[in-house]
């Protein structure tokens, strides 16, 4: 359905995305994990045809077999109206504070589907019920500030579902929410994806949320998709040193042990900091911070290795356990 081949995004000499390839089929639940500056949001913007004006793009994006290279803004608008929808981190910022949430959800129904006011209202009620908003009749008339953070995110999900998209892009949808609410929103997205056979692109820095929400995962670093594969397989035996570092650095809800002298153990860390877009190493992007680095890593881009079924990693020295 969505097929991305060797997509690169440059800003002058700086690289935001390097030869990213992805395929998204109906009902897929793909997670994109990475830290700030890894290119994960840029990837999402490209799928929506919303790459910044200043960016130079290369590579191909085909949607249902159609090459989008020559797509006009009007084509993209039609696509965004009906095929792709997106939800964001901050639900309050995405809702119009002066508009009742019911009107916000009814607008696209009337504009894109040409429904009458009554039909749009009935559909909005169905959508509110589908995303688990209690007492939808009363909620339709409320303003964003009258709702809790979780309810606001549900309203935005209802809005995103309004025109039956084939792909829902969720960019850090749970980051601003409390842990329990985040869990319920994650589960809601999974349920909607299954019930509607809708593809879900779940972008997050939160590995626990991605593990729960997705069946496949792409790990990004410095504009590269460094590792891809089934979520469970990748998280259980990561092939790329960056994935391993990221998993290790994540605290695991257990107290770090203290030694005999009472000194507490430390969290494993990835040394150094993410370089800026213009200062990334030419070869492997992770060179300079990698614990198993070879001399050629900084200059020579690794080929794609296949550490397992449906898996790939860009690394000169992928983990032996993962390859086994």
């Amino acid at each position, binding site marked *: 359905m969505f097929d991305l081949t060797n997509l690169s995004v440059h800003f002058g000499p700086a690289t935001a995305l390097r030869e990213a390839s992805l395929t998204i089929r109906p009902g897929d639940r793909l997670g994109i994990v990475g830290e700030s500056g890894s290119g994960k949001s840029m990837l999402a913007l490209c799928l929506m045809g919303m790459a910044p004006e200043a960016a130079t793009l290369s590579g191909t994006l085909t949607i249902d077999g159609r090459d989008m290279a020559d797509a006009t803004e009007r084509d993209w608008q039609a696509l965004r109206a009906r095929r792709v929808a997106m939800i964001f981190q901050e639900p309050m910022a995405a809702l119009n504070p002066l508009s009742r949430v019911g009107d916000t959800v009814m607008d696209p129904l009337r504009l894109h589907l040409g429904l009458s006011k009554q039909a749009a209202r009935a559909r909005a009620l169905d959508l509110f019920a589908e995303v688990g908003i209690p007492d939808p009749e009363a909620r339709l008339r409320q303003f964003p500030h009258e709702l809790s953070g979780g309810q606001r995110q549900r309203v935005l999900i209802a809005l995103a579902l309004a025109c039956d998209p084939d792909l829902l892009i969720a960019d850090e949808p749970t980051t601003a929410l*409390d*842990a*329990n609410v985040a869990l319920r929103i994650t589960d809601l997205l999974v349920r909607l994806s299954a019930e509607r056979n809708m593809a879900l692109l779940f972008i997050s820095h939160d590995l*626990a949320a991605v*593990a729960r929400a997705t069946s496949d995962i792409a790990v990004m670093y410095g504009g590269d998709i460094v590792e891809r594969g089934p979520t469970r397989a990748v998280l259980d035996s990561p092939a790329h040193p960056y994935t391993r570092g*990221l998993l290790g650095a994540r605290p695991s*809800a*257990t107290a770090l042990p203290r030694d005999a002298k009472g000194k507490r153990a430390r*969290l494993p860390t990835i040394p150094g900091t993410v370089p800026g877009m213009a200062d990334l190493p030419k070869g492997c992007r992770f060179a300079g911070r990698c614990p198993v680095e070879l001399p050629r890593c900084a200059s020579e881009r690794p080929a794609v290795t296949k550490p397992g079924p449906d898996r790939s990693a860009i690394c000169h020295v992928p983990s032996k356990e993962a390859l086994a």
Partner: protein
Amino acid sequence: MTALVEAKSVSRHYRMPRNHLLRAPEMLTAVDSASFTLNRGETLGVVGESGSGKSTLARMVMAFEAPDSGEIRFDGTDIHALGASDLRRMRQRFQMIFQDPFGSLDPRRKIGWSIAEPLRVTQSEAPSHKTAEALEQVGLRAADADKYPHEFSGGQRQRIAIARAIVTRPDLIVADEAVSALDVSVQAQILNLLMDLQDELGLAMLFISHDLAVVASICDQLLVMQHGKTLEYGAATQILNAPAHPYTKSLLTAAGA
């Protein structure tokens, strides 16, 4: 030896906006008789969602606001009974780190100036060697004192905020969501830094976060709050291994444990 911080049945209420002209406004109980003891060199983790009262508790420990009932003793002294100048002197001994380091650093001042700020409360001329020492303790260079906040990354700015907190050689650091805005790998670096400083300086920490995974990794004791009430309080390992309250269990699930 007395505990460093002792909170006894501390409560705090806020008046809600008036709903009806002729009715008294409703009261919200932000913190409902919370009690804890924090010893020197130890860490108390406070976990809860937004509105649980965890930040209000922190603000009372910092003496930014006073409890309606109960008392908070710092090294045996009731800090809310102190006069203004005594409190100012006492404040050297407890410092706070916030979530957003960019919001807590003056963008027009060199960071050396910002770091020395707590020292200037009690002395007019802050010695620059103290600033330099604090910078090096958080893994930055003494020469960085002459740079401005925008020249640093988010993780480095949080290190600057920590340098400012330790410059007075406090006994207690209150960290309110101090690593929540940071990327996972940076988060681990900052958590390790806090533990290094704790070992080095014998700091006690009140570590507040909505993220149980983060709190759990660095605390000795744990206090779980919801709607102002203390649901669980005790040794961290015990609560994590055998959570008594369903809410704690659900937080553990959310943390991916």
